[in-house]
């Protein structure tokens, strides 16, 4: 066999192997979660809070963690959105190519890669400084920090995809940058912005380390911004840590609930995005 043929088949095998590894591990994880979690899943899990002895294998559910997680990640995503959208519009519309812009992008990329426990520790000191306790609001703020880089860079990239000609069409009609951003770019990039939000939400709802100190954990339903709130990742963590197989299975069931939430949200955002694309110009 010739050298270039050998090369080609070598890289082909390499690519197939890595693809198989990725897909294989995904299915292994999903498979484990479903196989161990599904039998433990029942209506009570969705409708009840942990009762006395829940962590010893007695009855109850994880409604506290489901609601807590939805509130925490939802609030975090809204808070992050209020900062991300202006930043990404600033980066793309107002700032000309400068060292400052590159510095902002670099910092966001570094922040993206930061371990979430660092966000947790940072936000915890911030909460202490503000005189707050571990609370729902504290968790939301922490998750907002965590989600901010992902959301901003996602939005930044999707606005960057807008053809220059489209922006110029609006400028040429005498529109200001603000009018162009709000009336043209937001419509054009709506699907991309939505995807960025979902991506950030996904990271927020799945993160355990950052909410450990900042939102705390409670068996009660989240009823106040200033009280502690439970979350699904921590529910998984605590239940896995018990020595009882029945409770460990519930941990897998909780993980399955988390996966389902993300799946449902992806489906909703996809159908919303397709509605938004009606006017998008290509």
């Amino acid at each position, binding site marked *: 066999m010739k050298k270039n043929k050998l090369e080609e088949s070598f890289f082909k095998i390499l690519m197939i192997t890595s693809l198989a590894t990725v897909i294989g591990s995904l299915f292994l994880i999903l498979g484990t979660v479903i196989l161990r979690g599904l039998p433990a899943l029942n209506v009570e899990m969705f409708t009840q809070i942990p009762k006395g002895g829940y962590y010893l294998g007695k009855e109850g559910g994880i409604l506290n963690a489901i609601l807590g997680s939805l509130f925490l990640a939802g609030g975090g995503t809204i808070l992050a959105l209020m900062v991300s959208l202006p930043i990404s519009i600033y980066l793309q519309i107002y700032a*000309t*190519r400068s060292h400052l812009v590159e510095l902002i992008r670099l910092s966001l990329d570094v922040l993206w890669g930061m371990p979430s426990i660092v966000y947790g520790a940072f936000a915890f000191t911030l909460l202490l400084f503000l005189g707050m306790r571990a609370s729902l609001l504290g968790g939301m703020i922490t998750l907002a920090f965590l989600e901010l880089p992902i959301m901003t860079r996602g939005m930044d990239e999707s606005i960057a995809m807008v*053809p220059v*000609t*489209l*922006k*110029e*069409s*609006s*400028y*040429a*009609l*005498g*529109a*200001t940058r603000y*009018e162009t951003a709000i*009336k*043209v770019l937001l*419509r*054009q990039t709506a699907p991309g912005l939505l995807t960025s939000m979902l991506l950030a939400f996904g990271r927020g709802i799945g993160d355990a380390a950052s909410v450990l100190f900042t939102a705390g954990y409670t068996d009660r339903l989240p009823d106040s911004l200033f009280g502690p709130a439970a979350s699904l990742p921590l529910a998984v963590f605590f239940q896995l840590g018990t020595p009882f197989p029945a409770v460990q299975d519930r941990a897998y069931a909780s993980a399955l609930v988390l996966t389902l939430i993300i799946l449902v949200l992806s489906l909703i955002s996809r159908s919303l995005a397709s509605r938004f694309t*009606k*006017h*998008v*110009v*290509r």
Partner: protein
Amino acid sequence: MKPKIRIRSLSTWYGNQQALRDINADIPARGITAIIGPSGCGKTTLLRCLNRLLEETDGICVMGRVFLDGTDIYARGIDVTEIRTRVGLLAPKPFPLPMSIYENVAYGRRIHGLDILNKGNGRNLDKIVERYLRAAGLWEEVQGRLDAPASRLSTGQQQRLCLARALAVEPDVLLCDEPTSALDPISAQKIEEQLKTLKDETTIVVVTHLLRQAYRLADYVLFLWMGNLVESGPVAQVFNHPEDERTRAYLSGMIG
């Protein structure tokens, strides 16, 4: 006749590469002025100086003056959005805004609040949108589907929509950058016809690399060569009795 636009000592640089060299020219009020010349001679650059859109490009430097009705549009304190409202643009490739056909035409009027005074609710704006769609020769084709996304129109229809959109803010000057280069001959002809009907009220500046188009469309011609303005004048004079050797060579197909 008093010129609509006077260009004085205009030079531009992309980084350290000079694109326009000390341009001095007058563009007469009303009628069609064509800017001709080979690719890369600075035609589009010159055109985009006239509504200050050029400065949206990174690394650009503009020096000199451009007077619109006697006001220097590069003077300090000039509101650039007002200049762009008075000087409209038709781009080479049509780019509708991501909204309906109706909203595309209404967009400019809405942002400038042109219809706030005569609050005949939506109906007034409906009439205005219709008027400009007619002016662009598109009304008959879209009247039943004004709420449809503009992106569903054909390229030729999109270009006429862009014309309606530009006209709707009532500019004194309309800049056209190779307005038919992306279009089929039939659509191109429609655009040319619309421009001809508009030229009695509006000052139109057309950039084109098609000599035939310049000849049949224009009243005045500016010939650019390598960033220099070589020759300008009424179309018959420049085409039939070019003074400069380069103009003669270009028109006869020897160069460019």
